[in-house]
C-alpha cells in the first residue's frame, strides 16, 4: 500500500506536465505597460513572432523569441526572476499556450503578462517601435481563395508553402502544401526550389505579405500569397476537400 501511495505521489509530482496547472498570464493593455515603465519597473518585452518579423518591427528593446523557439532561446530570458515579462505577437493577442510563456513559467518568472491586441494595439495607441533590420516590401498581388483551385490547375508546378506552426499544419492544410514555419523561414528558404512558382499561406493573411517580400528579396521571382490566409480559404471552401 505504501508503495502504491508513493508511486501515485511520484506520478503526480514528477510525471504530470510541468506548468500544466499554471494559470495563463493576465492580459494587459498597452497603456498599463507604459505606466509600469514610467514607474521605472523592470519591464522586458518579448516578441513571440518570427525573428524576421521581430527584426522588421518590434517594441523598442524587445527580445525576439518565437513561440516555437522556446527550447533553443530559453537562455535569452533575463536573469532577474522578478522582471515583468510582457509577451506580444502581431495583430492578435498571444495564446497562453505559447511555448516560451510556459518556459518562463517553468523558470519561475512571477510577473508574466500578455499584451492585449499585440503589436497592433501598441502601435494604434501611438507608442514607439523600432526596426532593426527592416525587410523592404515588394509589391505583388494576392490570390483570392475563390481563384486558388483555378490557379493551381493553371500552374501545376506551383508549390504551396504553409507558414503556420507544425501543429496548425497538422490540424488542417491544403493538399500538397509544404510546412515551413515562418520562424524558420530565414534558415530554410534556401531549400525551396528557385524555379517553381510559390504560394505562401499563413493563418489569416496578415503575415504572408512579409514572407512573400522576404522571399522575393532573396531572389524568388514568382511568389504569391493567399489573401486572408487559411481562414479565408476554409471560409470559402466550407465543406469542400482541403
Amino acid at each position: 500500500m505504501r508503495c502504491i501511495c508513493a508511486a501515485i505521489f511520484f506520478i503526480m509530482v514528477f510525471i504530470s506536465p510541468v506548468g500544466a496547472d499554471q494559470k495563463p498570464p493576465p492580459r494587459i493593455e498597452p497603456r498599463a505597460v507604459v505606466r509600469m515603465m514610467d514607474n521605472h519597473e523592470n519591464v522586458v518585452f518579448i516578441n513571440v513572432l518570427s525573428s524576421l518579423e521581430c527584426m522588421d518591427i518590434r517594441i523598442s528593446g524587445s527580445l525576439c523569441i518565437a513561440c516555437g523557439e522556446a527550447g533553443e532561446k530559453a537562455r535569452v530570458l533575463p536573469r532577474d526572476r522578478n522582471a515583468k515579462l510582457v509577451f506580444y505577437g502581431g495583430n492578435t493577442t498571444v495564446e497562453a499556450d505559447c511555448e516560451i510563456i510556459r518556459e518562463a513559467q517553468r523558470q519561475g518568472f512571477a510577473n508574466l503578462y500578455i499584451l492585449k491586441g499585440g503589436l497592433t494595439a501598441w502601435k494604434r495607441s501611438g507608442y514607439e517601435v523600432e526596426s532593426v533590420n527592416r525587410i523592404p516590401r515588394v509589391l505583388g498581388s494576392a490570390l483570392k481563395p475563390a481563384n486558388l483551385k483555378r490557379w493551381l490547375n493553371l500552374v501545376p508546378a506551383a508549390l504551396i508553402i504553409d507558414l503556420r506552426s507544425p501543429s496548425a499544419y497538422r490540424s488542417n492544410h491544403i493538399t500538397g502544401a509544404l510546412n515551413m514555419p515562418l520562424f524558420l523561414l530565414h534558415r530554410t528558404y534556401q531549400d525551396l526550389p528557385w524555379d517553381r512558382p510559390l504560394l505562401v499561406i499563413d493563418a489569416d493573411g496578415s503575415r504572408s505579405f512579409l514572407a512573400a517580400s522576404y522571399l522575393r528579396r532573396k531572389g524568388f521571382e514568382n511568389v504569391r500569397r493567399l489573401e486572408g490566409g487559411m481562414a479565408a480559404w476554409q471560409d470559402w471552401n466550407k465543406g469542400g476537400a482541403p
Partner: protein
Amino acid sequence: MRIRSGGIGCGLCFVAFVCLTLGLIWAVGTVQAAGDPSGTSRNCQSCHNDALYKSDFQASAHGRNTCASCHTDITGLRRHMTGETKPRPVNCGSCHRDIASRFRKDVHYIKQNFQCQDCHQDIHGIRKSGAGFKVAVVENCSQCHSREDYILLGHSGALLKGNADAAACTDCHGLHNTPYYDSSLERDKAAARENYNRRCRSCHADVKMAKRNRFSTKTVASYDETYHGKILNLGFSQRVAGCADCHLGHNILPKNDLRSAMHRNNMKVACKECHKGFHDRFVSFEAHPNPLDPKRSPLLYWTNVFMIALLGGTFAFFWLHTILWWRRTYCDKCCEGKAGFIEKTILPECREEKQIQRFPIRDRIMHVLLILSFFTLVMTGFPIKYYDSPWAKILINLWGGAYRAGLFHRIAALVLCGLFLYTLWLSLHFLFPKKQFRGSLQRLFGPDSLFPNFKDFKDIIGMFKWFFGKGDMPKFDRWTYWEKFDFFAVFWGMTAIGGSGFMLWFPEVFSYLFPGWMINVATVVHSEEAFLAAIFIFTVHFFNNHFVPNKFPLEPNIFTGRYRLEALWHERPLEYERLMAEGRLDAMKREGPGLWTQLFASVFGLASLMLGLLLTGLIFWAALFY
C-alpha cells in the same frame, strides 16, 4: 644665384600652394557632394548615373531638392563609397509632417509596417499626377490589392474610361490615413460603418455629381428613412446595416448580375450577417424604399396615400371640431359677460359634498398604465422617426442609447398590448355576462356601451348646430361620441400600430407570412399611425377632456374615479336622468377623494399634460422644419 635659387624656391612653393589649395577644394567639394548635391549633384551622379537619378529625378516632384535633403545621414563620402556605412531609410516625415502624422494611424503602417517607400517605390522619379491622380492611385493600390475586386466589380470601370467623378480607392479608404478596423471589435465595426456611410454619402448625396452622372440622390434619402438609416444617423451604428454591409465593399454591380451582391441569391448572405432564420422572400425588403413611386412599390405607395388621407381626415374633422367648440365656449362666456353674471341652476342635491363614482379602481390603474406606456412609446419612438431633429439625439441618449430605448419601447408595447387584450376581454365580458348571449345586441348599442350607435351620429350633427348657434348642446348619456372615438381609435390603432410593430420587431418570423417589402409597408403604417395617435391624444383628447374651459386645466376623474354630481347633471344629463329613474344614483354616491388621491391626480395628471404639450411642440418642430 641667390635670386635665381630664391626664385626657384618661391616657384616650387607657389606650385605646392596651388596644388594644395586645389586638392583641398576638390576634397571639400567631394565631401559637399554628399552634403549638398544641388550644386554638386554631378558628384553623386558620377556614381549613381542612371537616368532615374539624373533626368528623371530633375523632372520629379522632388527635383528641386538635393540628394542630401533626404539622405541626411550620408556625411562621409569615403565611407559611403566603400560601403562602410549604409544609408538609413529616408525620413520623409521631416518634410511631409502632416502626412507622416496621419500615416501613423494608417492600416498599412499598423498592420504591415509599411513605410513611404513601400508604396512610393519610384520615389526618385515620382511626379505630381495632376488630372491622372485617381488612375495612378488605382494602379498603385492594385499592385497588392486584388484587381478583380475593384477593377472588375467596382467604380473603376467609369474611372478608367475617363470619368473623373468615379471613386478611386482613396476616395473611400482615404489617402495616408486608411483607418484600421479590427473586425472582432464592435466599436471598430461601428466606426467603419459610419466612416464608409459618410464616404458613400459624400458622392451619392451630391446633387451636382448626381446630375452629371445620372444617378439619383434619393438613394441616400430613402435609406435615411429606413430603420437602418435612422439608427445610424442617430449615431448608433453598432447593429444596423450601413452601405457596405449590403453592397459588400467593392461589389456594386447591377442587381441582375449574378456576381452582384444585390442579386437576390447573394443578398441572403448579406442579410444573414444580422438576421437569422428568415424565409427567402425576406430579401425582397427594400433598403431604399420610395413610397412616392407607385410603379416601383405600388402597395407601399397606396399605403402611404391611405395613411396620409387618414391623418388628414381625422385631424381635419377633430381640429375643426375643437376650434369650433372653443369658439362657441368663449362666445358664450363673452355673452355672459355682456349680460352680467348669471347664477347657474344648481340642483338641491348638488349642494351636498357627495360625488358620483364614474371609474372603478381597475379602470384608473389601467389608465395610469396606459399613460405611462404611451409616453414611453412616444419618447422612445419619435426620436427615431425624427432622427435629424436637434432633440432626437438628446432624448434617445436620455434612455441610454438607441438599443436601450428600443428595449423600453418593446416593454411599453407589451404593456399596451396587455391592456388592449384585457380591455378586449372586459368588452366581451360586458357583452356576454356569465356567457349569456341573450340581450347582447341591446347591451352593444345600449347607453353603457362604448360602441357607436345612431344617437352618436345625431349628437355629432347636434353638436355642430350648437357650434354655430343653431340649437342647444346635445344631451349626452354615459359616453359621448368623442369618448367612443377615443376608445375605438385604440382598437384601430392597436391593430395598425401593434401589428406593424410586431412585424418590425420580428421581421424574420413574418417573412414566412409576407414578402420582405411588407416590412416597408409596416414601417410606413407604424410611423404614420404613431404620429396620428400621439398628436390626436396630445391635441384633441387633451382639449376634449381637459382643456375645455369648464374643465381647464385638468379633469381629474380618471385618476380619482369620481366627480361632482353637478358635473354629471351638466355634462351627462341623460345618464343622470337614467340613474334617477332606475334608482341607482344613491348607490353610486361616494365621499370625495382623499388628499393623497387628489394630490396624485393633480401632480400626475398635470405632469402628463405638460409632457404631452412639450412633446407636441417637439414633434411639430421636427415635422415642419426637418
